[in-house]
């Protein structure tokens, strides 16, 4: 494979959720996203931020092969997406761990589906769990874990089969602010150490700026790209970074764009 391939390439992407019924009880068609053009390069950490309901998750689901675009094309590593791919790891807002499996077995789930459970895979998962601060929890059940730990298990599961692309849909959305901040630092470290390409969906501006090499701002529904901000920080991000004026400036830039798109639609 050539190294010049884009990790993700979205061109003229549009998705419409079909309505149903007729007359007064009819549910109208909803255009979730339109004209989305976006490329993610290998090794990047790209965040997509936007107001709620702007179709962020829809874009992610189309990349994951869970939804088909109404128009436009989705390419992952140069190939058109026709369904779920085994080289994509995904973590959603809910951890969705299987309660009857322990932590190790939950993480191995994708590996198992792909028929590749080997000693090496177990070792890789052990390494991931250790990096996620979950060493020693391998044989615990999800109910014995806190919300933050479950979410970290979900991220380890996403990385378990060594995917080239990591898709994250608000994985920390249900966590409290303090835990979330810690998770972000952990995620940054995992991303640096595993050298994956990552795409994060979030409505947290600071979270996006803290984690990303590029922040894509979407408009209100139908969501379309209104701005791409490139935080000029080194790959390693720290909590201290968040209190610097540079960080505040970039955050402000993103916030302004979000707000501008808001007003435009409102007026």
């Amino acid at each position, binding site marked *: 494979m050539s190294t010049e391939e884009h990790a993700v390439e979205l061109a003229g992407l549009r998705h419409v959720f079909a309505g149903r019924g007729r007359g007064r009880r009819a549910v109208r068609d909803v255009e979730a996203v339109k004209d989305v053009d976006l490329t993610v390069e290998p090794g990047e950490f790209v965040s997509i931020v936007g107001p709620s309901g702007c179709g962020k998750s829809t874009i992610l689901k189309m990349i994951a092969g*869970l939804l088909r675009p109404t128009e436009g094309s989705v390419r992952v590593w140069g190939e058109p997406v026709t*369904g*779920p791919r085994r080289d994509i790891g995904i973590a*959603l807002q809910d951890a969705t761990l*299987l*309660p009857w499996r322990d932590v190790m077995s939950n993480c191995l789930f994708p590996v198992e*589906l792909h028929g590749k459970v080997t000693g090496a895979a177990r070792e890789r998962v052990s390494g991931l769990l250790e990096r996620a601060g979950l060493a020693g929890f391998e044989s615990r*059940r*999800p109910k014995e874990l806190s919300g933050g730990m479950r979410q970290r298990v979900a991220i380890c599961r996403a990385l378990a*089969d060594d995917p080239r692309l990591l898709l994250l849909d608000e994985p920390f959305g249900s966590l409290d602010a303090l835990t979330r901040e810690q998770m972000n630092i952990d995620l940054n470290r995992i991303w640096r150490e595993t050298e994956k390409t990552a795409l994060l969906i979030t409505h947290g501006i600071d979270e996006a700026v803290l984690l990303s090499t590029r922040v894509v701002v979407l408009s209100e529904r139908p969501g379309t790209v209104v701005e791409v901000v490139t935080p000029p920080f080194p790959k390693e991000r720290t909590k201290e970074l968040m209190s610097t004026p540079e960080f505040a400036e970039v955050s402000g830039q993103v916030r302004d764009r979000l707000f501008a798109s808001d007003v435009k639609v409102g007026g």
Partner: protein
Amino acid sequence: MNKVTEAPERRVPRREPPAPRRSFRSGPLGKAAFLLLPPLAVGLAGVLLIQLVISRFEISGVVIPAPTDIFAVMRSDIFLEQVGQSTWETWKATLIGFVLGAGSGVLLGMLMAESRIVRFVLYPYVVAFQSLPKIALAPVCALWLGFGLTMKFSFAAMLAFFPAVIATLAAFSTVAESRLEMATAFDANRRQRFVRISLPSAVPGIVSGLEISMAFALIGAIVGEFVAPSAGGLGQLLLTYSEAINVAAEFSVLVVLMLLGVLQNKILFSVIRAGTERFFESSR
């Protein structure tokens, strides 16, 4: 910032937290006694009350047998021998019926859950048969299958079948969509989704369906014995005592039936639940 919260550090003598009091009630034996004693005491008082009322008002043993008479019957060798044999006969029919009926019921439920066409075609019939008072089918069953064990376990199987179908179907239709979507995102095929997501998620629902099936199988076996004169078992024993107007013995059989019911439904299923405990955990 807020100076008020900065209280000066006080030296408090370190004290060990008080050891939790270990009362008799918190021990395993104490717990069992605490759970069993009150109902036992009330039950005993009830039995005593009945005994007193019967002897005080000289109620005939043909109407309500005195508890002492029932105990006397239950301790007699001839009753124990008859009841031992009959209980085995009834339970054999119940078990065979349960395995066949509930087993095929769970399979059909799974098939209906997985195949829209099968569900679409068969569901009306399942509902129709479910609404039929199936006990009314006992004479027809006897006509077709004779008066022996076959008729008994077939009837038990029929009663056990429908609760298993309905419970299985319901269990599969409530499998969390998010789990299935997660599996799909990791490129799980249909079989993998069924085996690794739907089936384990449905276990609690299926087990509670099986519990109902088991109780229904026992009803089926007894009704089968009522209808088939040569079928033997506790149902026939009940009829025999009834014809002999031996009410105390009838009540003794009822006590045995109750014990059998408790044994199979509560004790057996608490073992099954313990064995499948990890599927009963709910977690996001």
